[in-house]
């Protein structure tokens, strides 16, 4: 199973590719994506689709909160929990 750091790298690379502003602003895994306006409401839908496809997880309604999507690190950590959950 992937650990948090591996997931973080994977998410960060994808975010860099899909949100060039994140790359240009040298956003790190602990920098804000939502507050900074880099990711908007439609961007979140793209992130959800990416996570579900890449990590074979299913996000529930309760997962859709700002805390989970604020930074690449927070995305990775709740994704990690989802993966662990689905493997149990």
């Amino acid at each position: 199973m992937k650990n948090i750091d591996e997931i973080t790298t994977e998410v960060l690379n994808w975010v860099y590719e899909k949100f060039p502003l994140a790359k240009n602003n040298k956003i790190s895994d602990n920098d804000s994506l939502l507050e900074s306006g880099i990711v908007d409401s439609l961007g979140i839908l793209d992130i959800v689709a990416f996570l579900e496809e890449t990590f074979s997880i299913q996000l529930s309604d309760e997962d859709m909160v700002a805390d989970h999507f604020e930074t690449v690190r927070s995305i990775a950590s709740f994704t990690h929990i989802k993966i662990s959950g689905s493997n149990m």
Partner: protein
Amino acid sequence: MRFLIEHMLRDSAERYPNKDAIVAGDARLSYSEFAQRVTGLAVSLRKLNIQRQDRVAVFLTPSTDLPIAIFGALQTGAVFVPMHHGLFPEQVVHILNDCGAKILITDSMRLKKLAPVIDQVDHLETLIVDKVLTKSKLQQHDFAELSLPISDNIKSCSIGKDLAAILYTSGSTGRPKGVMLSHNNIIAGAEIVSEYLSIRSTDRLLAALPFSFDAGLNHLMTTVLTGATTVMLEFKFGREIVKKIMDEGITGMGGVPSLWSLLAQPSSGLGKQPLPLRYITNTGGAMPQHILTKLRSLLPATDIFLMYGLTEAFRSTYLPPSQLGRRPTSMGKAIPNTEILVVNRNGKLCQPGEEGELVHHGPTVSLGYWNQPELTAKVLRPHPITQPGRTSGDMVCYSGDIVKTDESGYLFFVGRRDNQIKSAGFRISPTEIEDVICRLNPIQQAAVVGVPDAVLGQHLVAFAIAEDPAETLDPKEILAKCGSALPRHMLPRRIVLVDDLPMTPSGKVDYPKLTVRANSGVKG
């Protein structure tokens, strides 16, 4: 007598002084507070030497400051120029230069991003911000200080025919153009729309669309006209919208297709509990049928109005909810006090089923494009049907949208006459994107087309030819460079490097052919 936009506010403040006018987050302005802050700002703008018809640009996120800025500018006799809060410095500077704004009202976060370029804007004299920055050479003032409440009323010497707003929007070529709207246009739009949506002072409407967009601005104006409440919201998740609707008792809201797609996601929680929503309206592109079906089942007690409008004529048609079952893909018929014609290439009226251009005739036909008389003359033209008593000054708006009607006169959208793209409710000019691709990358020529997208309406695909055919370019790198100059809605989803582009016999890029290629997903 009511002939200026600010008169609508004056009247509502007299009739409903203690009613909520604007709600944004925890901030609430009653109509009397709203009117007094507006007057305070207007008095301050006068002191800053704002004259009748000067341009005041407004670049703010949804907050109570935004409507105060708009009405404050109007009350001095100035023209307000609202800019979408998501624009990048590149687009903002273009708009400021193009309209010759004397004052920019913005916030410190946006000003920081603008700081490296703001001093180069011609004509700009003053910045009004929530927090004064030390960096700029321009004089700066604090918004809150300038808009302290004043209970007097100051009057401008404007008349209803005067320019009131310039809304920037894209065409099929070049950079965004400013569509000029008069006081008369905006008041007529507010009266017409509040008539067919039956908006009352008891309504509480959610402003999910930006005021830089004609439908969003119209929303604000309908609430001020009727004494209803505007609830402003910046959102990231569908469930935030649903929560706001519950918490604030929202009775009506307008959206674009991408917003409804967001709300139709199960995670938004829409439909889990009955909502106070009396109606919703869609504009800015056709609502996808599967989303419409979902919304109808999730919101059985809510009327759904499908609307159509273009900035150049403000608002044009709507489909009454009673027709939704029979004609779910129709744009409806003309709004009240408006005539919509379908005209063929020979300038004759089309028969039912015959495709032609939608032509709008009515009180919301704009004054044309700011500083672009030639372009204006292409879009605003004399009425195609000559009739005794019709004067040559009575202009109609040629929309560039190809439509047809059924036997009962209901309109159906067919396509664009030109290459304009519409994504997430935004109009996008391919050439504006192509110019950025070529300017920031070793690309000699690019062509951008729109590809159907279930959420956005269309998304962008770019085809590009490298300057040096021997060099291998990375499309991801090209996109990353463009991402520094273009907001995400203007950024191509993918870039396809090609050796040549299909051309028409007259030597122009053959966009229809390229669109077919992009649709079929053929690479290269």
